[in-house]
């Protein structure tokens, strides 16, 4: 039973942190514009995120510290502020994107413009954190998020040419529109490898009081949970590559993205798309807001908990309240959610090494990890992929801004 609950944390982390507005938007655009050719980026991101999630669970199980506590302790207050401030800004944009994703799902179903949904969505998410507890949030999202399997069903029903998909798993250089190709590549990496995911996951591990006995099931959870998310994301990429790419349709509105499900599943496809987008983004919005509240509370040493009333952790509760309220304002102003999403994912990619490099140092620290230190494969994979993502993003973002 305990192990089952742990896997739930994994699936929730995966649905909220892996397949959410960012992954749906970036992989749908990638499929529409480049067919299967960016599939390798999806694979690379999945490998990296499996390593990182496994590491954050292991760090907490062995050291009894959350990732943020360990970073503050090991690298000091200056580093904490240096990495937290850019992280906060980027996550605030990501949070606005997630609220936008839910609001757009509601627009698809009701016809009422997404700006009007920004505040109702934010209030609903806030109430769940304010009144609910972590268990309800996790299990609810994990269960309802299964509707995202519709992407996989659609992908299968479209009979994708498997040799094209397999060929896409091999890295290739773009034949045309290099700037757009690399910009989408880093946006996909930023969408999959989200720092809030690790902070959230390691905090969950501490709240559930993991110890060394959880290391095995933690590895299982990381691999299964994240692979589950990856399968869903591959479903999105495949459906987009089958429906949009042959017709030369560029996806620049969410309403268009819904077409890839209606093509395969008919009219119910629209509702399934709205359901999948809405639920996964809602879960992600909770995860981003809570993840940042955890980061600040742990970094400054405040009292925090989600399992007792907000009056018992005022500063912690006000951080997620403030973040979700202000992010909703951004959406209510009518900023285009799709553009904001893709850019905030690319910005996430830029800031990745600020988290992953110190994280890797911690995982190799004998004082923290003892015999449970990292192996070289995990080190190379995480450092290589995150540095690559950051460097390409630093070049691709200005090019995209100049070109588009």
């Amino acid at each position, binding site marked *: 039973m305990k192990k089952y609950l742990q896997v739930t944390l994994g699936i929730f982390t995966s649905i909220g942190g892996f397949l959410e507005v960012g992954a749906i938007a970036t992989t749908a655009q990638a499929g529409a514009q480049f067919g299967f050719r960016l599939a390798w980026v999806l694979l690379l991101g999945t490998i990296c995120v499996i390593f990182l999630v496994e590491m954050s669970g292991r760090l907490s199980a062995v*050291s*009894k*510290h959350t990732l943020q*506590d360990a970073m*503050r*302790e*090991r690298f*000091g*207050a*200056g580093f904490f*502020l240096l990495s937290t401030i850019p992280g906060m800004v980027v996550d605030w944009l990501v949070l606005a994107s997630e609220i936008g994703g839910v609001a757009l799902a509601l627009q698809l179903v009701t016809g009422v413009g997404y700006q009007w949904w920004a505040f109702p969505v934010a209030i609903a998410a806030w109430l769940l954190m*304010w*009144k609910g507890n972590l268990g309800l949030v996790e299990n609810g999202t994990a269960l309802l998020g299964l509707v995202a399997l519709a992407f996989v069903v659609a992908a299968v029903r479209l009979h994708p040419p498997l040799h094209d998909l397999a060929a896409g798993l091999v890295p290739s250089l773009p034949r045309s529109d290099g700037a757009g190709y690399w910009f989408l590549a880093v946006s996909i990496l930023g969408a999959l490898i989200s720092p809030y995911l690790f902070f959230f996951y390691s905090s969950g591990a501490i709240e559930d009081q993991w110890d060394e006995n959880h290391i095995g099931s933690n590895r299982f959870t990381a691999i299964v949970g994240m692979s589950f998310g990856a399968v869903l994301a591959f479903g999105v990429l495949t459906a987009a590559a089958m429906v949009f790419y042959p017709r030369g349709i560029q996806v620049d509105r969410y309403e268009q993205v819904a077409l890839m499900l209606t093509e395969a599943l008919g009219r119910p496809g629209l509702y399934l798309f709205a359901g999948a987008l809405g639920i996964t983004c809602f879960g992600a919005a909770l995860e981003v807001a809570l993840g940042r509240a955890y980061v600040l509370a742990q*970094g*400054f*040493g*405040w*009292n*925090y908990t989600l399992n007792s*009333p*907000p*009056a018992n952790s*005022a*500063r912690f*509760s*006000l951080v997620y*309240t403030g973040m979700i309220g202000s992010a909703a304002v951004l959406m209510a102003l009518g900023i285009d959610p799709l553009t904001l999403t893709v850019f905030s994912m690319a910005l996430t990619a830029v800031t990745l090494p600020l988290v992953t490099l110190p994280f890797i140092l911690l995982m190799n620290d004998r*004082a923290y990890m003892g015999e449970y230190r990292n192996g070289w494969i995990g080190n190379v994979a995480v450092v290589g992929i995150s540095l690559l993502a950051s460097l390409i993003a630093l070049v691709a973002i200005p090019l995209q801004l100049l070109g588009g």
Partner: protein
Amino acid sequence: MNLTRDILDQQVVDRRGQRLGKVDGVILELREGAPPRIAAIEIGPVAVARRMHPRLAAWLQRWLHGHGPRSDGTLRIPWSQVKAIGVDVRVDLIADGTPARAWEEWLRDHVVRRLPGAE
């Protein structure tokens, strides 16, 4: 014991396991003819800011004194009250009512409790 590794930036918890803050500063006592010894640990945003830049610390201190609970949130804990150093630094205190909780309690009473369902 290594000051920066084992003490600085560690989590401080009170007698009941409540989180007080981080060890944001360590205060040493210089003695004639004897090695310096730790006099106290310091918790609070001003101590953090002092590690960045003294002017930032001065500005932050003024701002915190002028707003909310009119406290800069600094708590100095004499070394004699530090009971154990393990995963956390355990001190012989009750967190409630100390300056380290001033902002927490002010925000609780003036903001959080005014929102519905905070209890």
